[in-house]
């Protein structure tokens, strides 16, 4: 009992110290550097208490590719099954439940019907009222069984696969395939998709971004003006790189993630983000998700990042010590640490979704729930 009491006191004191540290960083108008010179405070950026899930507390697998928020329910696409977190418990769906494959790479919610679509390494599955229907390249018009991305818009399910893009019309059951034969796509390795009633964007690995105009029914393409090299001859002249991994389209703004930096496009002007001139923790970005036209979240191999249109925040276990870390970078490039006690489960971030002001993060070593702190 004594030992438990001592441990409990240490935890309480640690939390208290952490809280005090946090209030030092964000709560006052100025801070002082090592020699006592007053400096302006770091911008106030969202702070979270991260609760992390692993196989130890019911997650199907620690390698989490994707996460989807469905009201109070959380879906986690892992390497070994689809997890559903509901009422404090995890339930796992596997191939025994007719899931197309154990490795679930992507997730999408049909907000109209409540159905969840899961892109897997072995086909596309629909989870509807507990029933799983699976579409594969052999039993349906799906272009390929490796489904990297899925997005639902109206009655259409847009799919990104290892052999082209495709669309399932839920009304007619018709599959439409999009590849090098009928679009400007040069490569057919399609990594991500974002579908809206006006535009559909595909991140094509090695072939930039493909755009489909739903009204005009025409395709367009955005490439890196420098070609496929890592050179950036003129900043903000176009898409940062051809090797795109993720797209997000919101408020008529396109956000694009690549393995060599990220881009924002407003329909006329491009703005690119690189580690050397932004708060991005790494140019190697797996996933991007816009909050609106101004703000976005970035999942990189070196942590989770948030951009509010001016300032940046990075949330991760420290690269040096592994301890929880949060840093804020202001518009002038000043980087300030913010004392925190928790961080996402791992720096390699593969999926992001929002639950109100909370955030859920899929990482290579667990799923994280970032609970927003006032």
């Amino acid at each position: 009992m004594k030992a438990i009491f001592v441990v409990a006191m240490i935890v309480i004191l640690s939390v208290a110290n952490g809280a005090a540290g946090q209030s030092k960083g964000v709560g006052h108008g100025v801070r002082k550097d090592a020699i006592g010179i007053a400096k302006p405070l770091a911008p106030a950026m969202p702070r979270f208490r991260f609760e992390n899930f692993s196989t130890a507390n019911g997650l199907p697998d620690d390698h989490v590719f994707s996460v989807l928020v469905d009201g109070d329910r959380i879906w986690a696409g892992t390497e070994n099954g689809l997890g559903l977190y509901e009422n404090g418990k995890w339930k796992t769906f596997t191939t025994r439940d007719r899931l197309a494959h154990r490795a679930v790479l992507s997730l999408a919610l049909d907000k109209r019907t409540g159905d969840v679509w899961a892109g897997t390494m072995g086909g596309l599955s629909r989870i509807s009222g507990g029933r799983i229907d699976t579409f594969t390249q052999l039993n349906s018009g799906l272009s390929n069984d490796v489904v990297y991305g899925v997005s639902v818009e109206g009655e259409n399910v847009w799919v990104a696969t290892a052999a082209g893009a495709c669309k399932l019309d839920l009304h007619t059951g018709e599959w439409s395939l999009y590849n090098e034969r009928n679009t400007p796509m040069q490569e057919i390795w399609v990594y991500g998709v974002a579908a809206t009633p006006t535009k559909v964007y595909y991140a094509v690995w090695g072939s930039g971004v493909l755009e489909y105009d739903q009204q005009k029914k025409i395709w367009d393409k955005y490439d890196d003006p420098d070609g496929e090299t890592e050179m950036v001859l003129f900043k903000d002249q176009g898409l940062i790189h051809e090797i795109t991994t993720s797209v997000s389209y919101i408020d008529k703004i396109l956000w694009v993630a690549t393995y060599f930096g990220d881009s924002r496009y407003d329909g006329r002007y491009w703005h690119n983000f690189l580690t050397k001139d932004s708060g991005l923790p790494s140019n190697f970005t797996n996933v991007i998700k816009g909050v609106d036209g101004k703000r976005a979240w970035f999942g990189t191999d070196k942590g989770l990042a948030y951009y509010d249109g001016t300032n940046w925040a990075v949330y991760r276990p420290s690269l040096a010590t592994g301890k929880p870390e949060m840093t804020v970078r202001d518009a002038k490039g000043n980087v300030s640490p913010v004392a925190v006690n928790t961080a996402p489960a791992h720096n390699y971030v593969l999926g992001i979704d929002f639950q109100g002001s909370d955030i859920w993060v899929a990482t290579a070593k667990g799923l994280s729930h970032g609970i927003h702190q006032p």
Partner: protein
Amino acid sequence: MNRPRHNAAGALSSLAAVCCVVFGMCAWSGWTARASVATGRTGEQLEYASPLEVLFSPDGTRLYVLCQESAQVRVLDATSYETVKNIAVGAMPRGFSLSPKGDRLFVANSWDDTISVIDTKTLEVVTTWPVGAEPSSVVEDRDGKHLFVANRISNDVAVLDANTGTEEKRLAAGRGASYITASPDGSKLYVTHVYPNATAHRTAPDSEITVIDSARAVVEDRIALPYVAHGFHVAFSADGRLGVATNMHPKNLVPLAHLEHGGAFADTLTLFGADVGKPVEVPLDELELYAVRPFGIAITPDKSRMFITCGGSEMVTVVDVPRLIRYARMHPGSSAQDLSASANYVVGRIAVGHDPRGVALTRDGSKLVVANRLDDTISIIDTKTYRVASTIALTGPKQLSVLRHGEQTFYTARYSFQGQIGCANCHIDSTFDGLQWDLEPDGFGRDVVDNRPIEGVKDTEPFKWNGGNPNLPTECGPRTEKYFWRAENYDDLTLTDLVVYVRSLPARPNRWRLPGEALTAGQERGEALFVRGTDKFGKAIPETNRCAYCHSGPKGTNQKSFDVGTKKATDNAGLLDTPQLTNIAITAPYLHDGSAATLEQIWTVFNPQDTHGRTNDLTKDELNDLIEYLRTR
């Protein structure tokens, strides 16, 4: 899926086709004039009412009768049963319901893909809304916000704005979604389906009751019905604690050789809800007293009795509800195979007319009204004595036409051993069942065959997958009598009437290509592949290996047999009759043994050597185009 613009032309052409068939058959058989004199049967095309469903107005003063063949809602005085009004609705109406307020009557017209909205004060159709495809029932939610429509072909439930009829979305339901029932408090809707959901080849079929949260209009749950292939109506006790669904439970994984052991189907109920906990399946059959094709169901307000129409047995089965609940609690899971079970709770069997379907109880539960579809009558049953108090004949022809007699023969189970099955057991509503059967004559475990659809079957002979039956009289007569019925033979006239009926069956409208509508770009590309004579490498495709060679003609068959390399180890021969392509999009699974779950699998899995047409040079998008074309057939 497209929506037909209007079905009037189709209906007329179908009518003409039916007339031609009848007259053609009359000429073929040479007996009709004599038969009609001798038996009352007539070769005329008569317009029967075919009452399918019934319901009372909320105040109990009117009885609404949904008449499928005359495409009407007939409004009767609920006391005198005199006609108040006949209201014309759309083609082949299949389901109807009153709004919770009782001010509107909604009718699902299955063949022209519309909902008729009737004002119950004026008894006029005030509007008709397009829906799709093959709407089979319709229910309004308790708040009057949404209409829910079960679409049999698209296997879903459409959610419409209840004021405008605008479709907002579709919810995935079971295959052949057909019947919707609201829970007593209206918070949930329960949807059944008439064809089994897809399962792995030669595994037990399964079905579901799709549970919809009516306020949120989303699927909340699916009640699993293992081994059930066909689901029909659902009813609830007034307290909402007991839900009951009528089902057919096939025994298709074992050879169909033991009809004498009750070996073809179990006719069952699935009970669910607070009274029983987990769902429980119970049989209605008893040795020598089969309750073939249970369909309509009603529970008395005091929860003492339950009445179930059994179409093939032409009777109403009466169940003691407290005894049923007691039995279900003591026998969880399924007792479908136990022919002694029903003696514990079945307390009456009431003979009614041909193919009894829909039922309705008066508000006090004292009378049960039964729609006898193939008699054009309504049976009024005293629920205390289990006797038919009266039988009301609906206005219409009193003669028995050849077609009507043939249809009665198709739907009855009286010809089979102990009255266990009828043609309609495997040809649900004169279509197909989505199942594979192991018939005895080929050897046990040999030549397992997928059940082929029979709509538009005229001019597709020979029959059977091995082409062994040269015509319908052989197919429907000696073969059926010997291998299915194992009992009474048809007399010549009955067999002929049955054949006339089967030959008259029209194909339902194709939703992927409406009459007069041009092919889409994808369908056109697919058609070019279907008829092509050269492969993508410029090499000529032998004529016999082109799609359009075997699948030629208006029905998509040249009526010859070929070995297309699909023979399995359990098959006695690889030479197979070329199946017709009529409405092939909706008749999965495919190939003679049903091993191809989808059209795609015919080529992606079962055609490695290009023996079932040259297809291995096609890209995935071209294969998709080919399938888009096939869906127009």
